[in-house]
């Protein structure tokens, strides 16, 4: 019962991290693309859209980490040992991304040279972090993580090395950029820039599909390829199918300028992709060389789980209303007006 609730919280936090935090990385990735004379305008739109919310959006990741180390310590420590190197890369990216973004906005002297440096650091690290996030996610269920090994290659490099994790990284980066385009369309009053975001949303929409194909192709070299796993799991197949069909609805809404419907459908698609992935592997958190590490088998003692659930549930009563207030103040008013 307690484990059920915690697994739900982990799933929900991951989802919200992707939907909210992911689009912040996506915004950074967008700034890597050529922008011509709209560059300055795009920068200001992204500054205003991300500024008030990025720190709250980032908290969902911390929440996952805290739930893991308190409720599922073996899963947490296995991850941190076997995926030490990608975790380090992820952290370096998180540090550079957050500070470069804030420095860019709050530097008292706004001059082109330093602004360029901040932008390069912010956008470069956004892509970098998204890639590593995907690489880490892909590494969870490859069956290569080997907790017994102390050989440098087998224990610390092989678990995340290869085409398949890289393909998942690219896929994640494309999803983030796609979400950012969709969310940003209505953050600007400039018609030309809005058109550009719409066009880029279409481009990244295609990129998501292509990258998804890459993931499938790359998985053929894995111990168990995705096509095989997929057809064993009709639920995942169905969910992914619905996600793909929703593209029709999405573009109907985009062309008709239905702001919130567009956002909701895009977020729904990404949620379905995540759900499909979750259904493939849950309730196993990791598949290691010595077998699966499941949430239910690896849960901490009941007394711990109960306190964690209390903290999360009580915390939710504070966090969700304040988050809704935050979104109301900064997002609803603009989109409505």
């Amino acid at each position, binding site marked *: 019962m307690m484990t059920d609730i915690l697994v739900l919280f982990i799933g929900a936090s991951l989802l919200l991290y992707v939907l909210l935090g992911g689009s912040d990385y996506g915004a950074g990735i967008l700034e890597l693309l050529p922008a011509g004379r709209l560059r300055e305008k795009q920068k200001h739109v992204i500054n205003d859209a991300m500024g*008030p919310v990025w720190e709250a959006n980032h908290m969902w990741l911390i929440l996952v980490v805290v739930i893991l180390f308190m409720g599922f310590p073996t899963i947490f420590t296995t991850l941190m040992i076997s995926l030490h190197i990608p975790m380090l890369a992820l952290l*370096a990216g998180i*540090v*550079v991304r957050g500070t470069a973004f*804030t420095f860019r906005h709050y530097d008292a*002297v706004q001059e082109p040279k330093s602004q360029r440096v901040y932008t390069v650091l912010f956008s470069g690290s956004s892509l970098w972090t998204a890639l590593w996030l995907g690489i880490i996610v892909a590494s969870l269920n490859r069956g290569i993580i080997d907790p017994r090994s102390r050989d440098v290659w087998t224990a610390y490099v092989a678990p995340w090395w290869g085409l398949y994790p890289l393909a998942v990284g690219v896929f994640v980066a494309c999803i983030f950029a796609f979400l950012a385009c969709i969310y940003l369309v209505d953050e600007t009053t400039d018609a030309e820039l809005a058109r550009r975001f719409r066009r880029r949303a279409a481009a990244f929409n295609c990129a998501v599909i292509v990258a998804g194909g890459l993931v499938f192709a790359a998985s053929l070299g894995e111990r168990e390829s995705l096509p095989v796993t997929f057809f064993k799991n009709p639920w995942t197949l169905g969910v992914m199918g619905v996600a793909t069909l929703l593209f029709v609805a999405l573009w109907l809404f985009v062309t008709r300028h239905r702001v919130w419907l567009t956002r909701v459908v895009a977020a729904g698609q990404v949620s379905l992709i995540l759900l499909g992935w979750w259904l493939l592997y849950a309730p196993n958190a990791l598949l290691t060389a010595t077998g699966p590490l499941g949430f239910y088998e690896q849960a901490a003692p009941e007394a711990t789980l109960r*306190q964690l659930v209390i903290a999360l549930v009580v915390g939710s009563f504070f*966090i969700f209303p304040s988050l809704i207030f935050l979104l109301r103040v900064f997002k609803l008013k603009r989109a409505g007006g």
Partner: protein
Amino acid sequence: MNDLIAARATMGFSLGFHIIFAAIGMTMPFFMSAAHYLYLKRGDEVYLELTKMWVKGVAILFAVGAVSGTVLSFELGLLWPGFMQHAGPIIGMPFSWEGTAFFIEAVAIGLFLYGRKRMKPWVHWWTGVAVGVSGFASGIFVVAANSWMNTPAGFDWVDGAARNIDPVAAMWNRAWLHESLHMQLGALQAVGFAVGGIHAVLYLKGRAPDLNLKALKIALTFGAAAAILQPFAGHFAGQRVAELQPAKLAAMEGHFETGRRAPLYIGGIPDVETRTMKGGIPLPGLLSFVAHDDFDAEVTGLDKFPREDWPPVVIVHVAFQVMVGIGTVMAAVGALFFWFWRKGAFPRWFLGVLGASMPLGMLAIEAGWVVTEVGRQPWIVYGIVRTRDAVTPVPGMVYHFYLFLVLYLALAAATVWLMGRQIMKVQTRLSGGAQ
């Protein structure tokens, strides 16, 4: 550098870095709220100007604090999986409350920084207070988790594993109160003196005197009050350490031989080989009195512990002396601050003293954390798990160390540079406007 030393250096460095920004993040919101309150009540534009100025600084410092805190939450597992494996389920509770508090802080700071024109003035003011309250709470929770490492509670240790876990008892362990009190006062004191010191220097330079005087009064009201209270909190903490971690206290005081009428040394370097103090002024019986309220009380020395269980005595003793020395000076400066304020004017020499005191509190915080962390060695969980048994099996930790050393040094340099630009820009504009 072997892997254990590299891991310890990484942890120490990351903590020492983060703690500065954490201290700022949990106290500056109170200073800002005070300035903002005075603006809303009195309508004096200078206070609005001051609030805006502080807000810009806090936005930068808060971001650095948030990302370096993220690093720490991962590093618990990246560096010390052998610790988290046991400790996660026991002390996860303060961390989960800390997560909640910090989440609210992150939401509130977004509202406060960007929402001035989007909310009613008093609603906006309350979001600032919420940043401070949730930040302060998250500080207390994190220190509660640390205090458990000093006074582990809430479990039975059977055959190298924790049984009968009680997370509530673990959180309210015997060290949480004195550690939290000491730390939170320390944060107020350090940030109050740092901010007050900056404004004192600017005042002396003749820039925007009205604004800088108002700013230093707000910052030092918090800072000086905390500095005056801190010796009492510190004394309370010392007595608890004497009772709960006698080896740490002995290292702090360079006290080798157990005995009555134990002397308190001012200065001096402990010589571990000969087990004596070199130099320093001994005050007979004072250590007994400070530790146990009785000049004749027996104070446990390092001789009661096997040599391998001693913390690095010299480091702990020197760091402790630095902290206490600074604390004493700051309490005196704090008292003078209120004295001169009552008299109606701050002499220029005293503003100079305030300027010179700018970094003192942060130094004391760093020294204090060296005392508590190095003083707990060789244990990661006092008396239960040794640090060397908790370190990650991942090889090449020295590269992990260098990576974060370079990253954080660059970040520190960038932050200082940005703060300088910020201060110069605002002060130049204000001085230009006033003249």
